[in-house]
């Protein structure tokens, strides 16, 4: 008998039954398919502009920084200003996503844009967020051909770009959006929920930033809230 059969056998024997009967199993698979929301905190269920305030407030409390641009074409300049202000090199590792690469980076010839996955030598990384979750000030990053996850983790400074049309009140709404976008493919290889820059309290419970992931997280929210 395989270990799998033994384990399942022990569980069933202790429950005093065999495998679940079909009608019971159908109820469970229906429960999975329904994706019904459990109790969702009221905190995030508010109008968009309030969600943005909540989101930024939470992230800042977590030692991230935020700013907003109304028009995406102004984003490269904001990035350049951020690098200057923090005395960072002008080489950026960028996710090869049109959401970023289509922007007018060429107008800023001093910036060196390198697209691809994150690498050990990267100091600054920039990547688009799949969604924002206002409830806790959390970014949802979804991996894919245009969004390698290592850009979010290897560089010491991470700039995340969030289109405010992707702002959601709760985790549940963000999962709904992911299912809508991904269809039958299921989950991307990895989904990272990020709430602030990396930290540790493993030495005498003192909070120290930048344990393994980015020391600094800067979130730029893009858009004026109007539909396309």
């Amino acid at each position: 008998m395989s270990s799998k059969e033994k384990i399942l056998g022990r569980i069933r024997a202790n429950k005093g039954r065999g495998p679940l009967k079909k009608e019971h199993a159908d109820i469970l698979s229906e429960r999975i398919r329904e994706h019904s929301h459990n109790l969702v905190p009221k905190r995030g269920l508010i109008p968009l502009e309030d969600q943005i305030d909540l989101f930024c407030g939470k992230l800042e409390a977590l030692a991230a920084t935020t700013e907003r641009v109304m028009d995406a074409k102004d984003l490269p300049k904001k990035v350049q200003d951020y690098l200057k202000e923090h005395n960072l090199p002008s080489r950026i590792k960028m996710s090869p996503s049109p959401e970023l690469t289509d922007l007018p980076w060429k107008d800023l010839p001093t910036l060196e844009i390198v697209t691809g996955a994150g690498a050990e030598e990267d100091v600054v990384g920039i990547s688009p967020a799949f969604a924002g979750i206002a409830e806790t000030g959390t970014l949802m990053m979804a991996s894919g051909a245009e969004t390698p996850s290592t850009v979010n983790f290897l560089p010491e400074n991470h700039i995340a770009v969030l289109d405010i049309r992707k702002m959601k009140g709760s985790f549940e709404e963000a999962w709904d959006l992911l299912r809508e976008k991904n269809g039958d493919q299921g989950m991307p290889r990895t989904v990272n929920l990020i709430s602030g820059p990396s930290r540790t309290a493993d030495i005498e419970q003192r909070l120290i930033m930048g344990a393994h992931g980015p020391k600094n997280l800067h979130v730029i929210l893009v858009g004026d809230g109007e539909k396309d």
Partner: protein
Amino acid sequence: MQVSSSKFKENAHDALKDDNLRAALNRVKTGFTTARANAAEGLPEFEDLRDKARDIKDHVLENLDYYLEYFEQKVIEQGGQVHWCSNASEAREAVLKICRDVDAKTVTKGKSMITEEIALNKFLAAQGIEPIETDLGEYIIQLADEPPSHIIGPAVHKTKEQVTELFHEHHQQYGYTEREEDPEKLVGEARAVLRHKYVTADVGITGANFLVAETGSTVIVTNEGNGDLTQSLPETHVVVASLEKVIPTLEDVSTVMRVLARSATGQEMSVYTTFSTGPKRDTDLDGPANFHVVLLDGGRSEMIGTELQELLRCIRCGACMNHCPVYHAVGGHSYGWVYPGPIGAALNPQMVGLEEARDLPNASSFCGRCEEVCPVRIPLPKILRHWREEAFEKQVGPKPERWGIELWGFFAKRPWLYRRVTRLAASLLSMMAGKKGRLKSLPFNNGWTSVRDLPAPQGSTFMAQWKSKGGRVK
């Protein structure tokens, strides 16, 4: 890890004399508890979410076989593999085989209590595969060759000075010859040393806080980001998880997540919550080429349907130990096995045997704080009582202790006799104490009187006073 639960009393005595440990435990006592209280207060729905989290976990445990098979099916659909393991040795062999298949020399590891449970590091090292812990706390205790003393803060017992010495000893080979004392610089040093290890490791091993049946995803929660680097850089990602971690849907995970970090560290969310689903896709630019889940039973299936089933709701947040006066006094190592604090006292007798762990259920004052803060409302005091009863019935433990309980039981069942004997004992003690009203020593109870006097009973017994005031006596 080596079990030393049978030495609980000696361990506890040593711990009480350890000044460094005292300072560390005081930080746990104030830091974690205040943070949790604030986080709970900050979310009006918190108590209701605890109920929901409990209900979700109960629902899973009622249908555990179904959700495990569903999870496996989804992992396979996404191109991964699930390895079912009845016990620690099967799990170790499964990990070893995966490592051998890719000819692994080094393995980076995210924090995982299950790999502590199966003593994976020692095993891999003996097989010539170098395991490297990447969570800072785990890294510190790996250098110190010690087990974790807390499930979410493995190195809470270590002082900054001890970390300085450990890093000085082990980091000279990387060119860090100065003795570094600033905690921020110590973290920087570990970051630099480990960074290169992530990139060069052949296999990354992580644990899992959740296994999502709906999607075949495994979920880890960290603050450092070490788990993410561990699983996205090597060619092979191995998740080692126990079977009660399975949970039906992403919505259910979201509910439990809301009580996890708040109960653990008092954060609303840990910094990184990472869902991993299968190996890298054809068009992906990064991620592991192989994805394995090593699923450990390790005695858990035997708990299903018994009075211990509720322990399987545990989401390993550590709130019970953060709030436990006994843990605050003796620290994690005293418990002598992987899981310390109230959850360890309740779980370890099942995992390592009641004979070995018989002192642990007694390491409780039944104050009930653990149950009060448990995010999934595990009735820990009830389970500790269960073990005490079991120990008595199975005649585990020293005879004098049993005789004492039997003797007390004899009188307790005969109230009239109990009253007479206590009255007699009270006046006897009062006589022995003389004018001072204090006893300097007491036969059979030197443990009490060796460090303080026992105040002798004064006046009549409670029952006598009750009666004299017109109270009803059966």
